């Protein structure tokens, strides 16, 4: 059985996975490098990639970031438990799909329309996509395979994704915990010592120190500051 979908870069506009003969896995099975395999086999390979490749990262999508359904909180908790077990894991969210101009903050978020920017800037070599709507996940995963050398893992609540190196389907909180157990097993086999640690918070959330803020800090936007009632602004830049 040869690998049909391998880690990129596959080059500009690569052939899509379905056109290369990759079919979605039936219920109870998973996809690994485009081949239908047992779920556990795919999970073990994905776990090894997360443990051995540089800068493993989880990209949670809108379906898991926003509290829109009852079971979201449990799945979110399971994902964070998994993140804590992956050594030096980061979480970079994809809160929605709107284009980001003039420039995306690649340290703080990932966008489905140009995911390569975040992956290349952060030198991510293994990534999990979870909670991203399927049509955008397909688009993003193909772009990543085209332009980066990142190993992609799709944890999908529906039918899975052909473009990912490892794709687990019908995934719910219990399956995430199963994946976590497999990852711990693989970690022990590899002899990696790791105390579960939560990934760092979003870097864009650093607290600003407003106590030392002056009008000059607003630069060209100084004129937009509103003066208080009765205040007379005499000094401007």
């Amino acid at each position, binding site marked *: 059985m040869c690998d049909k979908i391998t880690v990129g870069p596959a080059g500009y506009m690569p052939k899509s996975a379905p056109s290369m003969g990759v079919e979605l896995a039936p219920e109870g099975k998973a996809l690994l490098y485009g081949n239908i395999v047992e779920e556990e086999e795919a999970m073990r390979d994905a776990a090894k990639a997360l443990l051995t490749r540089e800068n493993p990262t989880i990209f949670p999508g809108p379906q898991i970031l926003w509290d829109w359904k009852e079971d979201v909180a449990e799945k979110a908790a399971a994902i964070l438990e998994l993140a804590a077990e992956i050594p030096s894991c980061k979480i970079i969210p994809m809160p929605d799909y709107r284009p980001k101009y*003039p420039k995306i903050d690649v340290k703080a978020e990932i966008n489905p329309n140009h995911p390569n920017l975040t992956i290349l800037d952060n030198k991510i070599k293994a990534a999990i996509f979870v909670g991203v709507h399927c049509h955008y996940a397909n688009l993003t995963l193909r772009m990543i395979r085209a332009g980066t050398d990142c190993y992609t893992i799709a944890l999908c609540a529906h039918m899975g994704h052909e473009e990912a190196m490892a794709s687990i389907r019908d995934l719910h909180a219990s399956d995430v915990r199963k994946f976590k157990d497999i990852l711990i097993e693989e970690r022990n086999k590899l002899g990696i010592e790791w105390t579960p640690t939560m990934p760092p*918070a979003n870097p864009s959330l650093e607290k600003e120190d407003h106590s030392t803020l002056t009008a000059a800090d607003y630069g060209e936007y100084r004129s937009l500051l509103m003066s208080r009632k009765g205040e007379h602004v005499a000094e401007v830049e």
Partner: protein
Amino acid sequence: MSLKYMTPTEQFKKYLPKDYVELVDYGPFGKSQDEAGVNNIGQFKEVLEEHPMCSGCLMAYFIRVFFAALPNPEDTVTLGTAGCGRLAISQAAVPFIYGNYGDQNAMASGLSRAFRLRFPDKKKDVVTLAGDGGTMDIGFSMTMHSWIRGEKFTTIMLDNEVYGNTGGQESGMSPQGAILKMAPEGKKFEKMPATELAKTAGCVYVVRISPTNIKKTAKSIKRAILVAREVGPTFIHVYTSCNIEYSIPTEEVFKDAKDQEKDRFSFEEYMTDEAREVIERIEGEEKKAKKAKKGARKEEVVS
């Protein structure tokens, strides 16, 4: 599409980018126009901040006002088509659907019908925002038929009187005699009577406006959306000049808008009796609520 879509999962809040945390904490979602509306722009996190529009673009300004004026941003979907406007509209934190050129009103027809079937107990607003080409030229048939069918959503035409994105071709909405880069001899025909067409086709609330007065503009937008919820199609024809194609210096864009207010874009507001009833009812209720709130505040101060 619902307030829940702007409520982060507790576990993930610290992993969200600052931009989104601020939208959740200080955005207009779930708030009234008094708390986060056009009157206090600058005091809340707006759904649209960065955009790639040209410097001095009146369309970008109008779009900002539009989003601040939405009565229910968490339950609104915007639709658009090719043109300058969608560059900014698609970046707002309000769901946006982008279709083939000119089909925004056809899509909006299906969407608004589907919303009423799927969420009969909720008020979901559908608004199409497209340029003069998308609304009155290439999308003309779809615009007209949606009005003739009486579809309940709002159509906003961002009229810059030119195909600005493709190099300056004349559009049906360009004024007669307009000399443009790709119409060097000047336009030979009259500007299309958009508001008249809207009235004839069955729009129940029609406004033509040059958006120089923020409050007046916001009021028209709000009225159009509220009337569309209950009565039928509404239309706003708004002047959003293209300062590049019409060579308007950036500092004179607003002056030009004011000049147009006295010329082709004199304020016009038309409403049917049914629309008037709805507006009077809703605005009456709002006034009562405001009075009651003021009274309660006074009582608080006294006690």
